[in-house]
């Protein structure tokens, strides 16, 4: 390139994954500060961290919330083997050989997890699943999967978090407790910041919390609506009716727990707003009605655009679950629960989603990346997962890693490795690792497994006939 970089400040673009300024080994006592680092703990993906690193430990995390601090301080280098094969310590090469062998010999392999890894690693995981003809599913299927299904039903009117910051004068939090689950959401994006069109910040905004219980988030809201448990759908439908100018009677209080008068007050405020947003959590998606609840909220938001501008946004949990949705979608056409065993992608939540596949006892091998289904899936699913050979990548020795045939110890994304993470509003953000880990990244391990699988597949001439004739682009 003959032209200058835009400037040192502007274009010292995040560079390759090894961008950590120094390695842990040569700076054991040296104190370093990493600016504009990214916290990957939750879907907020705050990228304004100022990390102080002493040796191979983060000692200060300026701007981090309580969850972020716990994330940064607890990820130090543990004294563990590179990998375990059947519980016995092993080196990476032997473990990658064994992993490739397990996955290649499976008839119905399952890839699951992915939401706490970089998009670069997610891409390789999808590639492996495609090459071996398995199922790929992510933690989306057990959190906002219903919102994904609702999205396919009614669409979504949404915006980036900076739009909320700069414009939102009416903010509804529904079925979530951001004060404790996404602690910086209020201050960084949705309530406190002063924005281009809301120059007085919090004073220019009305905040509403809708939840079944009065959580810590209620303190931050102007209105708290305590909806009866399992009545989110009815509440959203009642608001839709009011948005359309239909009459409701007082019995709505009996149904939803909210007085009709209060609903009118809220709807009047919603219509007067210039830019409203509904931020909804798993209290909506994982209660009775599931995707119907999300669909009702998305439809309410859509309808409100007949009056003024309204947007909705699911509050995503895991650091890069949004990246997982994106990567699986661009690779296969579908967001999660994708079956590649017929040689092409098929989508059917409930049939091809990991918890269901396992609970039915179907998969015969598993590749689990950055997730711990052994601690949160149903008992039948856990029983089956424990009974099949699995390959697990995790920085920690999780319950899932303990049951694995091959368990890789990997470095932690965002702390030890670079890459890309998609914030809950689909904005991709680069990672600036703080210190080097002696352990390999998900990306490196998955690439190692993929290259082994491909080497074996490309050497196998019998594949030529069966596959190549079926294919083609025309």
């Amino acid at each position: 390139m003959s032209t200058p970089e835009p400037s040192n400040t502007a274009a010292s673009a995040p560079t390759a994954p090894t961008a950590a300024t120094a390695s842990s080994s040569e700076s054991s006592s040296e104190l370093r500060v990493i600016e504009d680092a990214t916290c990957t703990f939750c879907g907020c993906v705050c990228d304004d961290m100022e990390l102080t690193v002493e040796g191979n430990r983060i000692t200060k995390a300026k701007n981090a919330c309580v969850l972020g601090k716990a994330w940064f301080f607890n990820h130090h280098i543990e004294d563990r083997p590179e990998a375990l094969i059947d519980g016995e310590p092993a080196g990476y090469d032997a473990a990658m050989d064994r992993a490739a062998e397990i996955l290649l010999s499976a008839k119905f392999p399952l890839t699951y997890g992915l939401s706490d890894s970089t998009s670069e690693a997610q891409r390789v995981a999808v590639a492996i699943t495609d090459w071996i003809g398995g199922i790929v599913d992510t933690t989306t299927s057990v959190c906002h999967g219903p919102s994904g299904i609702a999205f396919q039903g009614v669409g979504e009117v949404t915006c980036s978090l900076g739009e909320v910051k700069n414009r939102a004068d009416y903010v509804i939090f529904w079925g979530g407790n951001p004060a404790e689950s996404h602690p910086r959401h209020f201050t960084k994006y949705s309530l406190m910041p002063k924005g281009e069109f809301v120059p007085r910040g919090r004073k220019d905004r009305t905040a509403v919390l809708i939840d079944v219980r009065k959580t810590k988030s209620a303190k931050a809201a102007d209105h708290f609506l305590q909806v009866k448990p399992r009545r989110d759908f009815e509440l959203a439908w009642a608001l839709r009716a009011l948005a359309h100018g239909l009459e409701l009677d007082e019995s709505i209080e009996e149904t939803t727990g909210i007085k009709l008068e209060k609903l009118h007050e809220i709807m009047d405020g919603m219509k007067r707003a210039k830019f409203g947003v509904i931020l909804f959590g798993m209290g909506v998606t994982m209660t009775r009605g599931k995707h119907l609840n999300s669909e009702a909220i998305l439809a309410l938001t859509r309808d409100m655009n007949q009056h003024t501008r309204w947007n909705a946004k699911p509050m995503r949990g895991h650091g890069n679950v949004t990246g997982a949705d994106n990567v699986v979608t661009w690779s296969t056409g579908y967001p999660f629960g994708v079956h590649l065993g017929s040689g092409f992608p098929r989508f059917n939540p409930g049939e091809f989603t990991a918890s269901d596949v396992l609970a039915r006892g179907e998969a015969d091998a598993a590749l689990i990346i950055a997730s711990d289904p052994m601690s949160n899936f149903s008992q039948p699913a856990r029983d089956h997962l424990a009974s099949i050979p699995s390959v697990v990548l995790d920085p920690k020795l999780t319950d899932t890693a303990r049951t694995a045939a091959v368990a890789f110890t990997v470095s932690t994304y965002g702390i030890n490795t670079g890459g890309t993470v998609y914030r809950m509003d689909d904005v991709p953000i680069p990672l600036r690792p703080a210190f080097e880990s002696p352990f390999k990244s998900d990306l490196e391990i998955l690439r190692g497994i993929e290259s082994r699988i491909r080497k074996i597949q490309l050497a196998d001439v019998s594949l030529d006939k069966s596959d190549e004739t079926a294919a083609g682009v025309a």
Partner: protein
Amino acid sequence: MSSLRITGGTIYDPANGVDGQVGDIWIVDGCVVESPSEEGAKADRTLDATGLVVMPGGVDMHCHIAGPKVNTARKMIPEDKRTADPVVRTRLTRSGTVGSVPSTFATGYLYAGMGYTTAMDAAVPPLGARHAHEELEDTPIIDKGFYVLMGNNHYVMKQIAADEPGLLKAYIAWLLHSTKGFAAKLVNPGGVEIWKSGGGNARGIDDTVEHFGVTPRQIIRGVAAAVDELGLPHPVHIHCNNLGMPGNHATTMETMTSLEGHRAHMTHIQFHSYDGDPDDQSTFGSRVSELAAYVNTHDNLTVDVGQVMFARTTSMTGDGPLGYFLHQVTGRKWFSGDIEMEAGCGIVPIVYKQKSLVHALQWAIGLEWYLLVDDPWRIAMSTDHPNGGSFLAYPEIISLLMDRELRREVLAGAPRAVADRCTLKELDREYSLYEIAIITRAGPARMLGLSHKGHLGPGADGDVTMYSPDDDIQRMFELPRYVVSRGEVVVDDAQIVQDTRGRTLHVAPDFDLDAVDDIQAWFESTYSIQFRNYPVGDHYLLDPLVVPTS
């Protein structure tokens, strides 16, 4: 050093004036070279193209194939894929889904399979640039790049309002650097910001965008001038205000005159050439004749068509208020995505029907454009994939352009009023293979300023497509016999035989570094991400090529 000789083909290479002459093409290390003068020179590989029609690889200068909006459409419309034949995994290639918005791997294979070796995504919001590059890396074989949305960018509007052309120019260059983008794109300039800040739209190019105090006319002229001064290889790429509205021909004409001689590319011009009353769809008609006459006499302008084809497809646009309009018209599910300081987005599934007066007129109006622009170098083939139809419809469009009887057959199946409201039935022009080679590769390459694309002279990329002549023109262009990308045979008899990666094309114009402080100050007071985390690093681009400015 590897070499390929393509021998005995009938070559159509309009950029070098070659119109159906039989000859050889030599490619060494991915580039076309002069045929060696010595007798008996040998290549590592020789392809016998005797009897085949040989053209440069196709160049699609306006499509939507990567980035946040495209991927959202994939997520939103599973039903579109369920009924389409998938791309099946082979020993060498990945699997994928098709429908109107194919998955990334499928996109690369399908373009290559149709003889296209370059495609440019036309609308990426800067904040989504990193995402677009990630997808392009997973889009095999073809060379690719994207245009950066700027027509509703707050900094652009502020500098135009403040009459600071220097800062505007520096910002556009900085933004192209930061995104690794290829060109400046305007989508409904000013109108999207009006939609984002409370609803509504710009109804004409002299409406004021409140809060910023600028008009679409000022944005159009300001950005067109800045792009010319920067010497970008492709001029400003304009999606006019009022897309799809009856009577919008007036806005389109005003947009063209507002340029005051600056270069511009008017995109999917079909959607902007309508007669009628904006409040009454039944008054819909064509005004192509006068718009095409203006284009014919103003060589600062080029166009692509945005042909509508009768099929189920997906409307996806950076034009947020248009998405809302289509949702209201069709009643179908709707996605809208507003992006801070930069852009909007609308997605709605849509079915174009031959029996619909409006849809059939849109189809006819697209064809009028192809047939009424005199100089084929000034008009590029596009469907605005997937808006008017899939890129997979290009062979069918070619057959319509080469066969007036076929056009008349289709017209006969449309509502009778269609023929009365446009000039299509009177147009006897039929495209030659030479002209098809212009509008599908040589012309778009020239419009993009890509001196290494769209031709087969020395220095060109070794991108070559070979077709078996066929009375069925559509079939001929659907199933090339061979496709070569940078000297590698990638398609042989409808099979992908080599899974190459392709390159990313972008620009890196010079600019005033002193402007960065002002950009940074504005950025830090507005965006929700850190300034240093905004620019896309080089490592996101596989084998990038910086296309020089002039």
